[in-house]
């Protein structure tokens, strides 16, 4: 939105007009941008899967765990939710090599940071999902003779997963946007690539507008999908 307003003001000031807009620089940059976008997707996908796995563990600890596990999960979740993501990325890039004496590289440090960070959010979403299934539903499962594990598997989990899937997908879209923060460790994702080319070619407006358009299209279609899914779940 801000970029659109900025572009509009530039147009008014005569510094951006259609004749001046250099499409060629974008077309030339496409192969590199595509590589960057693939890296963004890869980082999102891996962080999503790993974050979900770790988040599930945290949620299970919080809902069904013994007191120490509940405490651990609660502290973990609240700590990560109180820190800006960008700090977590920084830490893993700069602190881990200091502690271990060995750098794991930009990609892996970013992946670890995203996984640990996102897991905290996924855990909270899942906890809400588990709690959305009423005690009476559980009792109804018990009443027909289901054991504890059967009850979780056939009654509680299917309903919990249905309730939390739209929210998890929305969080995944946010994660995709957040991967642009790897800019701070100079990892060549889509955003960083666009930025590097923009500076090199001196074509900030073209590349940043294009980057915004790409993010918008991907994220907006993603949220449309989630909305359709939500309607389906609601019936």
């Amino acid at each position, binding site marked *: 939105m801000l970029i659109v307003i900025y572009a509009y003001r530039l147009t008014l000031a005569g510094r951006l007009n259609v004749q001046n807009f250099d499409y060629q620089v974008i077309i030339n940059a496409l192969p590199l941008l595509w590589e960057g976008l693939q890296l963004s997707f890869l980082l999102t996908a891996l962080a999503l899967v790993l974050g979900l796995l770790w988040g599930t563990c945290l949620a299970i600890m919080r809902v069904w765990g013994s007191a120490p596990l509940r405490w651990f999960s609660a502290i973990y979740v609240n700590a990560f939710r109180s820190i800006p993501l960008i700090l977590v990325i920084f830490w893993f890039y700069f602190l881990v090599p200091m502690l271990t004496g060995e750098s794991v590289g930009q990609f892996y440090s970013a992946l670890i940071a995203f996984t640990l960070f996102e897991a905290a959010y996924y855990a909270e979403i899942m906890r809400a999902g588990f709690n959305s299934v009423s005690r*009476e*539903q559980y*009792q*109804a*499962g*018990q*009443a*027909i*003779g*289901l*054991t504890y594990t*059967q009850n979780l598997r*056939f*009654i509680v989990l*299917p*309903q919990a997963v*249905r309730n939390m899937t739209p929210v998890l997908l929305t969080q995944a879209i946010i994660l995709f946007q957040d991967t642009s923060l790897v800019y701070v460790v100079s990892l060549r994702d889509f955003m960083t690539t666009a930025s590097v080319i923009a500076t090199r070619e001196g074509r900030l407006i073209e590349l940043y507008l294009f980057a915004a358009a790409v993010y918008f299209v991907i994220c907006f279609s993603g949220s449309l999908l989630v909305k359709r899914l939500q309607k389906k779940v609601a*019936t």
Partner: protein
Amino acid sequence: MIHINNIDKWFGDFQVLEDCSLSVEKGEVVVVCGPSGSGKSTLIKCVNGLEPINAGSIVVDGQTITDSGVNLPKLRSQIGMVFQHFELFPHLSVTENLTLGQLKVLGRSEREAKDKAIKLLQRVGLEDQADKYPGALSGGQKQRVAIARALAMDPVAMLFDEPTSALDPEMIAEVLDVMVSLAEEGMTMIVVTHEMGFARKVANRVVFMDEGRIVEVAATEKFFQGAQSERARYFLSRILYD
């Protein structure tokens, strides 16, 4: 069939059941009534172990449910339970609601379980709803499916926890009809309800509870003609509007 012996139950510092005893014979229909908060629902949830008790014992069909060695899931499968808010499984179709327990608990074959489900749906007049999801049914239909789900397990007794109190008035009769026919077939039933018409028609005995105690147990006619306790008489005068 069901023997509740001197049970106590506490929720924290609050005593919900105090020294409750009740025996229900095979084929008997017992209606439990009393003001809200008197412990009626808690009492019947203790019978199939959904609520643990703090003292006393409960024996169902020769098995003491409070014994540590008892197979509680198996025992529960032999006691049907119908809830106030139906508690159908919303992610499963009507037929799947009826077959889940048969398949996973009783180990019946898919074929057998489905046949049983269809027979029971016919019985409660809902065979044409078999493939729908609970969300598409009316309250009365949901409760009839819930009764069918309980019956699918071939229970030796049925517990009803205010089965009509969440229903619109015009749907109460369709549910009570099913319950009356069950009673007439000789099903052992404990029914928590304020439907005094139902009690008069099929109950052998009426239990009146207040403040966690069983205040009075009387044969149905005797109860309505003249309850022994002041509190029961007062309660009846408040709910029988005639």
